[in-house]
């Protein structure tokens, strides 16, 4: 961009500025050193626009995954507005309550309130661990953080409101399930088959990202390599049979667990490489399945300029991994598809003076808009107060996104930071940090091996504590938490006036109801068919060359419980015991 002569001249001017104008300023403000930095072409010396940025929707995608703004994934209900789901088929907000009946009734309520999208299922912890609701470890957990799904019968109930013009061929369904993901995707397949809907018509996204469970969220079941066998089977089955369904959604839960931005992104990329390798090693062409791998939000801090840079860098890194490391020929495979329009995380929400979280989330939505996404002010401000957000907080989150989009007109320019000396310099810097993590993990034999050894988990714990120490000392300021907490501050309370969509009386009896229903199911179903399906699954799991997916579908159709299916998997694959990492 700039030739050597002009750069030399600029360097001289910069030195002069530092000695005169800047020095005067510091003297006047009584500072030893500046608290700011100013960027010039000196910071991006050899910058090549086409190589580093390019046009939106073109390699290397720094300026945007798509040439123009995609329809949003944020606000999904209420009237009109160009922020509504538009031309794309999307899933709705993450939700799941109590029993299948409770969740069905929640969706019925939401449809009345204007939802035009499919469900985005939150599962309770026993379901996430493939335990039946009456397992000793399920005690107290049934229906708490999501819906309890004990068998295919529960899927039939949950999806009752999704018929006719909301049938499975018209909606997208997300399933936030990882460890036993295949069993739950298989239930969805069984439901489509029962309704006479071709698998090629199904849309949606199972989370199905097992590697992040070990480092971010703790809901793993089997050792990493055994888990990858299940992932491989889902990759192959979905790629061959469900071209409109995503296979998995690479997630950033490591952020919530304490990983830094570059570390988390490095883990995500390394996890992605591991999944791509699983598909290729199973005999698929990279371009047969890579475009069905998506990303969850990559944000997670209030340091938003850095978050914008990470986002721009991520698109470039993923494209290069696909093109250069996997030899992908199809640009469709190179896209980092990530719909979450916010760049702050759940971990940035504070319980103290919680309305401030609306400000934080709005800043995150602003930052997302700067990366070419439809902004969403997520999560709602009452996120850290208890499980279950109020309808009021969700209304405000949607309104904030609408204000960002319509009133502040933030989405009219693609990659507004393109070419900024500062942003391009920072994007290069964070890209290098992410590659360092990717290369280190690959050097250890890949993400599964680096997880198996406990290394990745230990590094997240270390980052979490390093960050926390800065909060303890006040080096990192969190308003209303570690600073600005004195007697002179006003407590600002919030109230909930709109009734929770989930009746607390139903919540109180959900576990009891779910267990009673499960006992009835075990008595009434064809137990010979269940036994045969479990035996078939056992055999399929023991034979590496087989794809287990048809066996999971058979288990669903026979109404085998998730605990029974889980027991077979645990027996054959073994259970992962975490290392003492701290």
């Amino acid at each position, binding site marked *: 961009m700039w030739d050597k002569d002009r750069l030399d001249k600029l360097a001289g001017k910069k030195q002069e500025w530092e000695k005169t104008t800047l020095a005067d300023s510091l003297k006047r403000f009584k500072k030893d050193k500046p608290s700011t930095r100013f960027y010039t072409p000196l910071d991006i010396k050899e910058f090549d626009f086409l190589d580093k940025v390019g046009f939106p929707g073109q390699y290397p995608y720094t300026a945007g995954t798509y040439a123009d703004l995609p329809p949003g994934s944020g606000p999904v209900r209420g009237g009109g507005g160009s922020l509504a789901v538009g031309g794309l088929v999307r899933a709705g907000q993450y939700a799941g309550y109590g029993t299948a009946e409770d969740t069905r009734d929640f969706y019925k309520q939401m449809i009345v309130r204007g939802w035009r999208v499919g469900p985005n299922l939150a599962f309770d912890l*026993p379901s996430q661990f493939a335990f039946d609701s009456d397992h000793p*470890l399920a005690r107290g957990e049934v229906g708490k953080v999501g819906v309890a799904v004990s068998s295919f019968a529960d899927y039939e109930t949950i999806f009752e409101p999704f018929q006719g013009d909301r049938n499975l061929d018209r909606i997208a369904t997300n399933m936030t399930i990882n460890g036993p993901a295949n069993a739950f995707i298989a239930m969805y397949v069984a439901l489509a088959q029962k309704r006479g809907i071709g698998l090629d018509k199904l849309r949606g996204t199972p989370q199905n990202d097992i590697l992040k469970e070990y480092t971010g969220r703790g809901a*793993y079941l089997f050792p990493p390599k055994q888990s990858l066998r299940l992932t491989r089977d889902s990759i192959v089955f979905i790629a061959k049979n469900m071209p409109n369904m995503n296979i998995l959604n690479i997630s950033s839960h490591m952020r919530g667990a304490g990983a830094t931005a570059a570390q988390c992104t490095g883990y995500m990329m390394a996890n992605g490489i591991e999944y791509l390798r699983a598909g290729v090693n199973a005999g698929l062409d990279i371009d047969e399945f890579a475009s069905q791998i998506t990303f969850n939000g990559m944000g997670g801090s209030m340091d938003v300029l850095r978050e914008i840079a990470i986002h721009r860098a991520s698109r470039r890194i993923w494209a290069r991994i696909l093109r250069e490391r996997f030899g992908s020929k199809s640009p469709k495979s190179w896209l980092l598809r990530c719909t979450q329009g916010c760049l702050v995380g759940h971990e940035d929400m504070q*319980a103290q003076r919680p309305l401030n979280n609306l400000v934080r989330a709005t800043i995150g939505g602003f930052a997302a808009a700067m990366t070419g996404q439809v902004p969403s002010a997520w999560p709602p401000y009452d996120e850290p107060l208890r499980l279950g957000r109020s309808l009021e907080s969700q209304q405000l989150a949607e309104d904030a996104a609408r204000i960002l989009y319509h009133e502040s007109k933030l989405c009219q320019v693609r990659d507004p930071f393109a070419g900024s000396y500062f942003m391009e310099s920072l994007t290069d810097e964070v890209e290098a940090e992410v590659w360092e993590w990717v290369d280190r993990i690959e050097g250890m034999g890949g993400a599964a091996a680096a997880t198996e050894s406990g290394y990745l988990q230990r590094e997240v*714990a270390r980052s979490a504590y390093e960050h*926390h120490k800065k909060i*303890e000392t006040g080096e990192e300021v969190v308003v209303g938490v570690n600073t600005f907490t004195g007697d002179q501050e006003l407590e600002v309370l919030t109230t909930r006036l709109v009734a929770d969509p989930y009746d607390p009386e139903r919540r109180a009896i959900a576990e009891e109801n779910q267990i009673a229903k499960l006992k009835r199911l075990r008595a009434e179903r064809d137990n010979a068919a269940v036994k045969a399906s479990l035996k078939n699954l056992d055999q399929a799991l023991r034979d590496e060359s087989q794809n287990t997916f048809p066996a999971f579908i058979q288990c669903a159709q026979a109404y085998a419980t998730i605990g029974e299916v889980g027991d077979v998997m645990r027996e054959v694959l073994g259970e992962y015991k975490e290392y003492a990492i701290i």
Partner: protein
Amino acid sequence: MTQDRPIRVLIAKPGLDGHSRGAWVVTMGLRDHGMEVIYTGLRQTAEAIVQAAVQEDVDVVGLSCMSATYDYYFPKVVQLLRETGVDDVLVIGGGVIPPEDAAVLKEKGVDAVFGPGTLVKDIAAYIQANLKRPGKAVA
């Protein structure tokens, strides 16, 4: 106060919740305050936690839970400790726990509940001020 040994703490994750950041940070933070801290890892039953507390002869049991199962596990740990004849161990808890639920936990014998945003130095100070067996341990 006699200085027999440092304060011993067991940090435990009861139930299926896998969000361990709080437990990690409190474990490492209390160590930096001079305490000996044992972290159980994930997916502990109340029975296993009490057994570990007795075996390790701890002064404090810290329970961490983000999945709203604290209402089952925290009182259960208190109850099992009492049934085992242990009445001089401080039981504290943390997680996303609304104040009204924290009040119920305290009624059921949990000594203190620390919510999101708590600084470890405040937990350390609380422990030092409220040890139930002060003759035995000191920070």
